[in-house]
């Protein structure tokens, strides 16, 4: 996540920035017990009122241990870093690129004479964004998989997003992307990173611009949904998005020995994992695994949340071994690591994407 300008007391308090900070303050309640003792969730409305300023102050006092909180969150400064510290790098890159595009667009717009605000502010925002981008470039070399995370970004998408959640999935008359589109949304996320144009794509569409609605149309054109149904041919879906998909086979309890194949797949691509997070081993959900990290954990994005999760092979990082592949997921919002905050994904099948 990123903010363009300072948020808080006497700050410019740009609506979008304020929403980001309000959202992170709410997340911090679950992360920092001492903050939780003094703070309740605030409304994420983009309005920096007394409650938001007070919340920043409490965060600085309780979490940052400031004796004299300045009640401000500034891009790149300590309070911002602390609030934003659990967000996965690739997600940051994508959000950053959006912010950068905004200021670049504003700059171009100003050059075209279409922007009324002053030049200095626009240039400042542009320089801030470029600085942040350069910083991210230098961080990207730490990416444990060696993927070039700057040239290829994974866009995190949520099934229930208002932009596409109500869109009917495939040839279904009732089922929507929100209710049933986990596989399609996961494939879309993968394609924003490593997809390429095929004959079914709309003119001028690029992988980075793909949304679940566009993917849904591409799949329909390619005839990948069953008749009158939302059932999707997944390997065909990968192909229609310009990727190669290799299927491990119809769902079964995935033995731990198969983890080597997943690790291998993550070296050069992504893994679309069929998981079960309920009571059995049938497979009720699809998530996208993006990285094997140097600490042995995995990074992945769950389309139900549209968030990057850190996935562990044991619930408490103890390195516990299982006969089958179990991944324990936590997003930054699911801290601390109590059993209630851990979502267990039982892997029953996977498709290697490259």
């Amino acid at each position, binding site marked *: 996540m990123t903010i363009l300008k300072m948020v808080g007391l006497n700050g410019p308090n740009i609506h979008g920035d304020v929403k980001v900070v309000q959202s992170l303050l709410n997340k911090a309640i679950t992360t920092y017990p001492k903050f939780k003792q003094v703070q309740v969730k605030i409304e994420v409305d983009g309005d920096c009122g007394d409650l938001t300023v007070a919340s920043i102050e409490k965060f600085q006092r309780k979490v940052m241990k400031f004796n004299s909180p300045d009640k401000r969150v500034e891009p790149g400064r300590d309070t911002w870093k602390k609030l934003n510290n659990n967000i996965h790098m690739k997600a940051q890159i994508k959000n950053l690129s959006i912010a950068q595009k905004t200021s670049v667009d504003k700059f171009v717009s100003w050059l075209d004479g279409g922007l009324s605000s002053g030049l200095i502010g626009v240039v400042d925002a542009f320089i801030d964004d470029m600085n942040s981008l350069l910083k991210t470039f230098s961080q990207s070399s730490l990416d444990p998989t060696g993927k070039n995370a700057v040239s290829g970004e994974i866009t995190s998408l949520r099934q*229930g997003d208002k932009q596409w959640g109500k869109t009917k999935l495939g040839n279904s008359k009732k089922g929507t992307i929100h209710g*049933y*589109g986990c596989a399609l949304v996961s494939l879309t996320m993968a394609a924003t990173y490593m997809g390429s144009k095929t004959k079914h794509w709309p003119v001028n569409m690029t992988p980075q611009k793909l949304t679940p609605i566009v993917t849904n149309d591409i799949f329909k054109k390619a005839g990948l949904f*069953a*008749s009158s149904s939302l*059932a999707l041919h997944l390997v065909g879906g990968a192909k229609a998005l310009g990727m190669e998909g290799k299927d491990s086979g*119809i769902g079964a309890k995935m033995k731990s020995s198969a983890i080597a194949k997943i690790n291998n797949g993550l070296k050069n691509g992504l893994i679309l994992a069929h998981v079960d997070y309920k009571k059995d081993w049938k*497979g*009720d*959900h699809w998530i996208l695994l993006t990285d094997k990290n140097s600490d042995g954990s995995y990074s992945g994005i769950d389309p139900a949340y549209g968030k990057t999760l850190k996935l562990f092979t044991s619930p408490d990082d103890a390195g516990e071994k299982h006969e089958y592949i179990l991944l324990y997921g936590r997003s930054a919002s699911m801290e601390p690591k109590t059993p209630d905050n851990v979502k267990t994904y039982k892997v029953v099948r996977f498709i290697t994407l490259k």
Partner: protein
Amino acid sequence: MQNKFENFKSWYVFSFFILLSSISCSSEEPAPLFEALFKNLENGVGSEDECVSFQDYSIRMLYEDIDYSFEVFAGKMCSPKQELVKSRLPAEALLAGEWRGFIVIDNGTGSASRRVSLFDPSKMKNHFEFDYVDNPIFNTGSIDFFSSKGKIPNKTECPGQYDQYDEWKRLQFGIEIAVKNRYSLEKNETILLGQTKCIFIE
């Protein structure tokens, strides 16, 4: 030539007025319908503030960070003064509609292993839950739904579904046999009806 031009002009003026009238009418569009997820569930009326109003209740589900805030109000339009319940639902929850005074919540993210909850606003708790495959059918006093038997059929075990069977095979889906159940609201019990059908696994 002049005549043709006059005709063209008339059509142009006529089209312009049609366009104007359509614009002026657009502000009077009825409130958007909340389309129920399953057949025979009550549809609702949606509003811009994410409120869905049914006959006796209104519901607001707002996604916040990792799950939904779930609010139920007496009457329509989600009036804060008439709030009955404020709770949380997981990210995979979806408002499906209203049935016999229950709020129907569908849970799931893909086509397999879905679960329906009948939430009773008067008791502020779930009245009944069931796991299903394929779409459940809400009758006047009962709900018919299929549950997986876990058995993989051959084609002859899918009578009346041969075309589907072939298509599912072509699309490389898994196929299983499911069996029909009926939940009776009056008796508050579920019985196995025994009828089977074949279902796909994506």
